């Protein structure tokens, strides 16, 4: 009976600690993921803005010839609609 009571008390203490640990660990992991993704997206967008619009047909021509595409010089101004402006 005493052992049973001991196990119950142990579970009452252990379960909230485990759940709290899991919650904190996930929140940290989520924060790190989002921060890294945000930095990466920002860096890539700078590069894409420099490249500007490209001719879509070049992708297929490039895939066939295995040659890199030449970036255009035109720069978009509105991030939501890169063709306007």
């Amino acid at each position: 009976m005493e052992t049973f009571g001991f196990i119950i008390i142990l579970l009452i203490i252990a379960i909230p600690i485990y759940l709290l640990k899991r919650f904190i660990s996930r929140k940290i992991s989520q924060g790190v993921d989002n921060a890294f993704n945000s930095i990466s997206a920002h860096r890539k967008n700078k590069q894409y803005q420099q490249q500007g619009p490209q001719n879509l047909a070049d992708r297929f021509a490039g895939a066939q010839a295995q040659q890199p595409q030449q970036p255009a010089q035109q720069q978009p101004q509105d991030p939501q609609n890169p063709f306007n402006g």
Partner: protein
Amino acid sequence: MVWIILFIVVVMGITLAVLLPGAIEDGKKRKAALASGDLIKRNPSFYKDKEFFKANIQDQDAFFNALSEAVKRTQVCSFSGNYNSSVVYRGNRGQWSASLVRLQSDDGSVMFSFGLSNYTSGGRTESMQLARMSMDLNFLLTAIEKTFVQFDPQTQVNVQAINFKTHY
């Protein structure tokens, strides 16, 4: 002790026997599709980008029909919605969805944005799930791009990185 090792070996063997044929089949399918032009070799993280298409298309109904047919032929997703506003594609394998959204344009051209909207992964086969999603999304994107080029060879494309958020 011997039984434990034997058990682990058997479990690993069963896992490999289940997963390996699928991976080999995907590899063959990818190779054939690259050769036939149904797939384009892309950056491994292309699914983190959003594409903006701008095309001059006279017969828009024919274009939308061709787009639907091209997407159906890929057999990688089901879709719902209207090409005059937005269409949502849901992957047949794995939990992913992508959307093609029609944008306003001032000069009468047809403008769309395409990107992955949602992707759920997890478990021990996460990298395999990601590879499958990536391949299926590539099939879908290639079909959409080919249709654009077919109707307007001068279609312009612009790329933006998506700022994804992770949720547990």
